[in-house]
C-alpha cells in the first residue's frame, strides 16, 4: 500500500525534471538573479559614468575659450570662472534646431560660448565642442569629444595641430576644405588620406556657425537646472 502511494505522487525533483517549467527553471532563476545583479551595478555606477562624461566636457571648456596657456593662468587666478550649461533655439523657419551649449563667465563678464555638436563622420558620429567668442565673430577653439575614425588617418582630427587651424576663423563665412596650402583664408587643410573626416568636422562647424550666427543672444539661451 505505502509502496503504491509513493509511485503515484512523484517527488518534487522528478516533477521538476519532467515539465517544461522544470526544464527552464534554471534559466529563469539565473535571469532573475543576474538581472538583479545588473540593476545593482547600474544603480551604483550610473552617476559616476554620467559624471565622467560631464567632467570631460567641462574640463575642456576653459581651453576652448582661452587656449591652453591662458586657461591655466585663469584657473590659477582669483577671479571665478562660471560655466553655465544650457540650450539654445537656433536656425530659422520651420526647422529650428536645439543646441546644447555652455556659457562661460569670467569675473562677471561673458567670456565666450562653447557649443556641443555632432554629425556623421567617415566611420561613425563625431562629437565636437566648438568655442566661440562673446561677439560671435570668431572661433576660439575646437575639441573632438568622441570619434571612431580610421586609426592613423582619420583620427588625426583629434591632433592639436589640425584642430588648432579652426582657432581664430571668422564665423562670417563657411569654411572650406582644401588639400595642401590653397592660400584661401577660409580653407582648412585636409588631412592626407582622410579628406572625408576633415570635411565632416568642417561641415559640423559650418552648420553650427550658420545656425548660431544670428541667434546666439542672451535672451534665447536657456540655462538647464542642474540636479545635484
Amino acid at each position, binding site marked *: 500500500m505505502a509502496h503504491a502511494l509513493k509511485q503515484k505522487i512523484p517527488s518534487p525533483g522528478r516533477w521538476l525534471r519532467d515539465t517544461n517549467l522544470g526544464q527552464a527553471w534554471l*534559466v529563469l532563476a*539565473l535571469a532573475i538573479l543576474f538581472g538583479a545583479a545588473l540593476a545593482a*551595478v547600474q544603480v551604483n*555606477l550610473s552617476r559616476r559614468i554620467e559624471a565622467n562624461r560631464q567632467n570631460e566636457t567641462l574640463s575642456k571648456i576653459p581651453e576652448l575659450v582661452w587656449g591652453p596657456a591662458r586657461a591655466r593662468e585663469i584657473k590659477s587666478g582669483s577671479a571665478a570662472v562660471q560655466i553655465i550649461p544650457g540650450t539654445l533655439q537656433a536656425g530659422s523657419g520651420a526647422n529650428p534646431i536645439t543646441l546644447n551649449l555652455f556659457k562661460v563667465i569670467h569675473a562677471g563678464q561673458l567670456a565666450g560660448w562653447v557649443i556641443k555638436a555632432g554629425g556623421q563622420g567617415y566611420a561613425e558620429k563625431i562629437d565636437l565642442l566648438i568655442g566661440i567668442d562673446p561677439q560671435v565673430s570668431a572661433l576660439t577653439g575646437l575639441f573632438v569629444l*568622441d570619434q571612431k575614425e580610421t586609426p592613423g588617418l582619420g583620427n588625426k582630427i583629434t591632433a592639436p595641430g589640425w584642430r588648432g587651424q579652426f582657432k581664430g576663423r571668422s564665423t562670417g563665412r563657411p569654411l572650406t576644405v582644401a588639400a595642401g596650402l590653397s592660400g584661401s583664408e577660409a580653407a582648412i587643410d585636409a588631412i592626407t588620406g582622410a579628406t572625408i573626416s576633415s570635411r565632416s568636422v568642417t561641415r559640423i562647424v559650418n552648420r553650427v556657425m550658420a545656425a548660431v550666427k544670428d541667434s546666439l543672444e542672451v535672451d534665447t539661451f536657456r540655462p538647464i537646472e542642474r540636479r545635484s
Partner: protein
Amino acid sequence: MQVLPTPTERFIQGILPENPVYRQLLGLCPTLAVTGGLKPALTMAAAVGFVLLCANIITSLIRNLLKPHLRIVVFTLTIATFVTIVDRFLAAYLYQMSKALGPYIPLIIVNCIIICRCEVCASRQSVPAAAADALGQSLGFGLALAGIAAVRELLGTGMLAGYPVLPESWPDWVIMVLPPGAFLTFGLLLALVNWISADKQQGEGGGS
C-alpha cells in the same frame, strides 16, 4: 570514462599547449581589433579574463543542473551578465579606455573562447579545475594579445604602452596600427609559434 585533466594541467594547457589564440584560433576578433597598442590589449585581456573566470565558476557550480539542450542559453546568459558588469565598470573607472575600446567590450559576449571553456571544461569539472582553466586560458590570451600589440605599437608608433621607445628618427610604419598590420603581425607570430613548437617536437624525437 575519459579522464579529465587536473586543475594544474588545465592551467598549464591554457598558456601554450592549448593557447586560445595560437592553438585554438579562437577569439580572433579582439585579437585583431584592439591590438594597436599595448594598453588597450591588456585591458581587453583583463576584461576577458574576469568574464571567463566568473563564467567558468558559475557554470561549474551549476553543472549538475544543466540540461543539454539549454546549456548554451545558460552560458550566454552568464557571460552577457559579466560582460555588462565589466563594461559599466570600465565606463565608471577607466572612462578614456572604455571610449577607446568602444564596441569591443560588449562584443566579448560572443567571444568563442569563453563559451568554449564553459562547454569543454566548466560544465564537466569541479570549481578548482574550472577556475584554473579560466586562469590559464586568460593568461594565454593575454600573452597572445600583448605579443601582437607590442609588435604593432612599436613598429607603428615607435612607442610601447604610450612611452617612446624607438628613437625620434623611426619612420612610423602606420600600416602596423591599421587593420592590415593586425593580420600581418598575427600571421607571422602564428607561424613563429608553430615553427618553434614543431622544432621542439622534432628535437624530442618525433612529432605527433
